């Protein structure tokens, strides 16, 4: 008997509970006419809920407790190992050996006694678990069946349950944020145990590989993240200088000048740019934009033009964020009341004068908000820079040089085989923490600007 089988049994019992409770309620209502409080369907649903929930709760609690107890017991077999992480390694080996046919036995005196113990305990545990869960479900089923009567308020109770479930679902989104913050925070704090905060934030030399060597004394010097941050900002600025003018002027043209026909044709096409996966842009940067810029570099005879230069990654990133700026700015421009525009035109101003002197000042907050949002997109974008920019961290403001970004470093540090405790992998979490907060601050500012401004005209 496996855990899936128990689950199926419980679900089956709950369905049965729905069926008989509905039938009983229907029978009551047939006798009493209209006097029954809730429809039979609600009696059935509430009974099914009552039947299934205690077993589910117990199942979750049980799985947590059983893990802890088993690990504690297995620890006794390896009490000669003092280092907890190595003991855990053996314990995992025991569990894998029993659960997974492919895994191999480990070299330890107690290994096979431990596996025997684990096997028999798990067997007993499963038996006990299935009996207790099924019994509990049957008791709940009987109890919920007895509850049904003409004035039992099954509908109210069931709707309360539904509302609770929705409430929990909505709180889940907060848990995601908490999860992000905690998972980043813990690893970041562990990283700062080995590398001082000020070295990370203000150091100018970034080469995380070097700290792997244990004989390396001054490993702290290689985690200075300043070049990574400046690289990110350099690429984002290049991206903004491509996307900013194109996006802004597209939005102005589409919202002020374009006829409805042009607008309904051009707007979706620009929007398509936002729907293209970033990995496609990355590939585009590698096969088209990169070679193009390289040839330009040769043509204009630019010294030290790197094939992973910030210019390539930045300009492709810029193409990607054009639609963000265009559509957000378009929204901001369209939100300006018509009366302002018409008033200005009536005074004899040309449309361009109206746009630059009336509409843009009136929607300035919205435009700034859209630029900030686009900037935060650019900072957090990963695939384009991973494919088009390099891993080498250079502290430079020269757009022809190769630079690296926060996201490139995270990908580089966390893909492939890694041990989880080294400062090298932990540094990725510290970078991600910085990235998360930077984008969060940008988002909060821009969202609040946009919101405040929108209310102004409503």
């Amino acid at each position, binding site marked *: 008997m496996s855990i899936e089988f128990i689950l199926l049994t419980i679900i089956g019992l709950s369905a049965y509970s729905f069926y008989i409770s509905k039938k009983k309620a229907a029978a009551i209502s047939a006798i009493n006419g209209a006097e029954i409080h809730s429809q039979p369907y609600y009696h059935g649903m509430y009974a099914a809920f009552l039947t299934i929930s205690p077993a589910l709760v117990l199942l979750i609690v049980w799985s947590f407790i059983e893990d802890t107890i088993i690990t504690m017991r297995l620890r006794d077999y390896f009490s000669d190992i003092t280092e907890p992480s190595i003991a855990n390694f053996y314990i995992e080996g025991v569990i894998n050996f029993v659960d997974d046919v492919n895994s191999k036995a480990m070299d330890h005196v107690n290994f096979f006694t431990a596996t025997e113990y684990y096997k028999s305990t798990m067997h007993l545990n499963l038996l006990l678990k299935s009996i207790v869960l099924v019994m509990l479900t049957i008791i709940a089923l009987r109890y919920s069946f007895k509850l049904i009567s003409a004035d039992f308020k099954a509908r109210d109770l069931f709707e309360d349950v539904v509302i609770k479930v929705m*409430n929990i679902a909505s709180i889940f989104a907060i848990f995601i944020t908490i999860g992000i913050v905690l*998972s980043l925070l813990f690893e970041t704090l562990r990283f700062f145990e080995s590398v001082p905060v000020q070295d990370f934030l203000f150091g100018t030399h970034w080469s995380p590989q070097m700290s792997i060597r244990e004989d390396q004394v001054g490993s702290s010097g290689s985690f200075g993240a300043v070049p990574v941050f400046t690289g990110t900002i350099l690429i984002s600025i290049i991206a903004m200088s491509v996307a900013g003018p194109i996006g802004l002027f*597209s939005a102005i043209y589409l919202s002020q000048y374009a006829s409805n026909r042009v607008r309904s044709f051009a707007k979706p*096409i620009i929007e398509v740019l936002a729907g*293209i996966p970033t990995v496609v842009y990355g590939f585009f940067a590698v096969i088209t934009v990169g070679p193009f810029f390289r040839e330009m570099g040769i043509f204009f005879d630019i010294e030290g033009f790197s094939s992973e230069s910030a210019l390539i990654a930045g300009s492709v990133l810029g193409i990607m964020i054009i639609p963000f700026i265009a559509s957000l700015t378009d929204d901001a421009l369209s939100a300006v009341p018509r009366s302002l525009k018409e008033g200005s035109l009536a005074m004899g101003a040309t449309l361009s004068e109206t746009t630059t002197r009336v509409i843009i000042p009136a929607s300035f907050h919205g435009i700034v908000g859209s630029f900030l*949002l686009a900037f935060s997109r650019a900072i957090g974008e990963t695939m384009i820079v991973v494919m088009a920019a390099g891993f080498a961290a250079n502290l430079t403001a020269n757009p022809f040089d190769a630079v690296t970004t926060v996201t490139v470093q995270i990908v580089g540090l966390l893909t492939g085989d890694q041990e989880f405790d080294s400062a090298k992998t932990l540094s990725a979490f510290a970078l991600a923490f910085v990235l998360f907060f930077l984008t*969060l601050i940008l988002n909060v500012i821009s969202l609040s600007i946009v919101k405040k401004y929108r209310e102004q005209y409503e």
Partner: protein
Amino acid sequence: MNNILSRNNAEKRFKVYGVLAVSTAIILLGILLFKIFSTGISAFNQSYIGVKIEINNSINSSEIDPRTELRQQLRNMFPELTTRAEKRTLYSLFSSGATYEFEDLLKTNEGKTINDYYYFLASDDVDMYVKGTVKREGDSAGRLMSDQLKILDQFEEQNLVELHINKYLLAGADSREPEMAGIKGAIYGTFYAILIAFITSFPLGVLTAIYLEKLAKKNRISDIIETNINNLAAVPSIVFGLLGLAIFLNFFNLPRSAPLVGGLTLGLMTLPTIVIAARSAIKSVPPSIEEAAIGLGSSKVQTIFNFTLPLAMPGILTGTIIGIAQAIGETAPLLMIGMVAFVVDIPGGPMDPATALPVQIYLWADSPERAFVERTSAAIMVLLIFLFLLNITAVYLRKKLEKKW
């Protein structure tokens, strides 16, 4: 007068800037799509070389070693090649997949005799040369050396080099050899991951949206949830990858590289998009309908599930499709949870190691072989066409089902 003239000129200039900006954006999109499609289209064909196969006694496929037999047949075609090096050059024109194809040929002709020309998969270097991606420069072409070209020329003189439809690309799993590499495994991986993402994010997102829009009292908590969701929508995707790594892999010990973990991570990422879309869809249902339902005696929950939700469904589905389309193209979080492994088997379920289509694109784009470039473009074509169809569906749903009140 001069003043008006310059003002009008300024007006014209301003308009030209606008036209330039819009057309730049459209031209850039055009270049991107043109480049991808023009590079990728050739990957749907593949070079095959005809070999005269002559087996005169009735075939017993279990007795024949396909590799040695195919080589024997090749040597029979070119009796003049005698040294080991020359023979090896001859074999090198073919892909290792040719052996499998020959094996299949033997199996289908069990018990018969054959004496005819059959076509076998050429190596990727030959493929690149035949398609004209690499040109002949002096003695060599790309990675094809002069002695290889000499033999290939003899095949071409007899018109034995042909382009056939590439059956490996769509129906095969990943391979180190470009000519045999396919995206079927990646498509399965994407399918399982997206299925999981949908199962987790859709119910959660819709329930959250209903609660926030219809049930929550306007207080601090609902305010916090609301700002929180808006901010989550703008969190970089790679951060979600780290969340998946820390929670699903390190805390819950779920298997690495599995579409299950990828799906859960993508689900968390898509959740805010669905919530925001569902909220605006629910908001657009006219209150008069809900008031009528309540007036007729239905409870709040009944009103929501029987009237509001069905009417808001088209909008919710449109938003969900757009969110899912985003998740399909997402690469970075999948890199974090280890879906970048080289996986040869086609995954049979969400627990098997797999990669996803965009990750496959990333891996191929990183490969040094020239032949992977066109295959990467072809994989991108498949991805883009699929996303395009999804978005068309979303637009169609919105047009068809959405009611204007």
